């Protein structure tokens, strides 16, 4: 068997997974991993469709039995427990509201099963409904709710249980952009207000970056990188991560004798390290229109091919003299001059702002 990948960290881990994996027949949906989830964190599992996010989430929630490995929650081994025995609650992709119950009955269902005294049950339900702004909708049936309202009911129904870990599976992805942004804000507010440990599955990097305190990037059943949004954006560990999280220009080249040679670069740059194929990853926001008075590690000539206005910033495509296109963004301040399409100019960036990946 393969060695489990260890990405366990120290600190107060509320969920502790060791050697956890899941296969469906020959198809390995999640390769063996060690993974810890810290108390109070908002962890995003980010990756393209089919990379095993839901599989991992369902193992934590008790809906899928792992093929190998163990899961501990609050120090207790729950590997063999079904969902009803775990203090986790999952907000499903399709919400899974109970169609024959009112909003209030939906939210109170878990408390009722736990035989919470009536008075306490009503109080908790009311508090939760008003937290998600559903006061006045108590007696509606799920069919009579909008997508956003149904989403809130599903969230309230899980949160009212005060789960040790709240699990969410792409639960905002069915909403339109405007509503999704609002719900992201609300989720952040709720997390700040109530505390608790959240795990959030998404394929949307913006969503992950705006919500999570830690992001785990997944690909083909592996967690390929973990860290804060800033970490991952600035220091992607692979071409995949660089391309998936945020926009990136990637220039292929070779390092030999401490020098970088890349056909797309019009300059030679020094770089320490062994001789190998490399990829230079440059985020669009670190490239500047060259100021003639400044020195740049990387500098080259190009022609502005397109210019798009985004309110807070401009986005340019610049064609380098031998064909390659570089994306760059310029934050707007009134004093800036903005080059026009067709204009010839020099662009540049510094080595400490870009990332050099050795060949994978």
């Amino acid at each position, binding site marked *: 068997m393969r060695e489990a990948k260890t990405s366990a960290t120290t600190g107060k881990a509320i969920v502790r997974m060791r050697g956890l994996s899941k296969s469906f027949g020959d198809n390995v949906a999640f390769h063996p991993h060690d993974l810890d989830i810290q108390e109070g964190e908002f962890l995003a599992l980010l990756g393209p469709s089919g990379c095993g996010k839901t599989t991992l989430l369902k193992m934590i*929630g008790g*809906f899928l039995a792992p093929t190998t490995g163990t899961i501990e929650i609050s120090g207790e081994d729950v590997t063999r427990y*079904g*969902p*009803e025995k775990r203090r*986790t*609650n*999952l907000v*499903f*992709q*399709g*919400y*899974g*509201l*109970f*169609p*024959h119950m009112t909003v209030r009955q939906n939210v109170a*269902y*878990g408390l009722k*099963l*736990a035989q919470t005294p009536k008075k306490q049950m009503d109080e908790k339900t009311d508090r939760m409904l008003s937290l998600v702004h559903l006061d006045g909708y108590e007696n509606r049936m799920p069919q009579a709710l909008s997508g956003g309202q149904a989403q809130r009911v*599903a969230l309230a*129904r*899980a949160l009212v*249980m005060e789960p040790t870990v709240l699990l969410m599976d792409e639960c905002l992805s069915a909403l339109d952009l405007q509503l999704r942004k609002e719900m992201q804000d609300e989720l952040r507010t709720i997390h700040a207000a109530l505390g608790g440990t959240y795990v959030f599955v998404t394929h949307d990097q913006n969503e992950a970056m705006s919500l999570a305190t830690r992001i785990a990037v997944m690909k083909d059943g592996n967690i390929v990188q973990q860290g804060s949004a800033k970490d991952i954006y600035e220091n992607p560990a692979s071409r995949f991560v660089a391309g998936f999280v945020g926009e990136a220009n990637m220039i292929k080249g070779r390092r030999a004798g401490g020098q970088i040679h890349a056909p797309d670069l019009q300059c030679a740059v020094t770089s320490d390290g062994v001789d190998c194929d490399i990829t230079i990853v440059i985020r669009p926001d670190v490239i500047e229109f060259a100021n003639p008075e400044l020195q740049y590690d990387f500098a080259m000539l190009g022609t502005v091919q397109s210019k798009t206005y985004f309110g807070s910033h401009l986005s340019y495509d610049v064609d380098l003299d031998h064909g390659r296109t570089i994306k760059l963004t310029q934050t707007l301040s009134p004093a800036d001059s903005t080059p026009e399409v067709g204009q010839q100019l020099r662009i540049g960036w510094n080595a400490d702002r870009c990332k050099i990946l050795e060949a994978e």
Partner: protein
Amino acid sequence: MLSPLVLVVFFSFGSNQNATFPVGALTLDWYRVLFKNPEFWVGLKNSLVITVSVGVLSTVIGTCAAMGITKLKSTKANTVISALSLPIMMPPLVLALALVSIYSGLGIRMGVHTVIMSHLVFTQPFVIVIVNAQLANFNFASVDSARDLGASPMRSFFDIVLPNIRPTIIGAALIAMAISLDDFIITFFTIGNGMTLPTLIWGMMRTSLDPSINALGTLVLFATIGFSAIALRITKYQS
């Protein structure tokens, strides 16, 4: 097509001894004759026991089977449903013979209980198909949610699945009961010395043709129509 049925009903209320036209004066005499016949009460009791047992059992077993089939992949599910439907595609006579040879082979004495078992064989496919069709539209994420909120598998079935498919299940039960109540061939072969209302009609037909047969026929007819009508109404309400 319907005229023989209408005639049966007509004659059952007419005073003409020979059950021919003219019908004669309107009367309930034939029903009185029927109710005085002790065999009628035996047949009625057996028919009730069989119909109700078949209704309950085929619904419980059929619903469990349908729940199981829903968990299968669709190609597999179709194969299973086709296999389970074989008994209703066979000629009833062949099915009856097959059942009789099984019972005698196993040394099971025939009576009301064998009729119930036999009826289950061909009422169940209807229940399975009807319930399965309803479950196909059911969102099982709500069952997962119930489990997540602390419900056992059993509890989630009773709290979430059942309330949403209850009308369909009742409809399926009534259809199973209508089919069971109506059956003659299989009942005739598997009941041994006993009798039900349909086999009583057959017996009376061989001995006498007085209109109390028509009275009995009318009763069975209305019971069957009643079950089916309620079933249709209930299942229609849902969609």
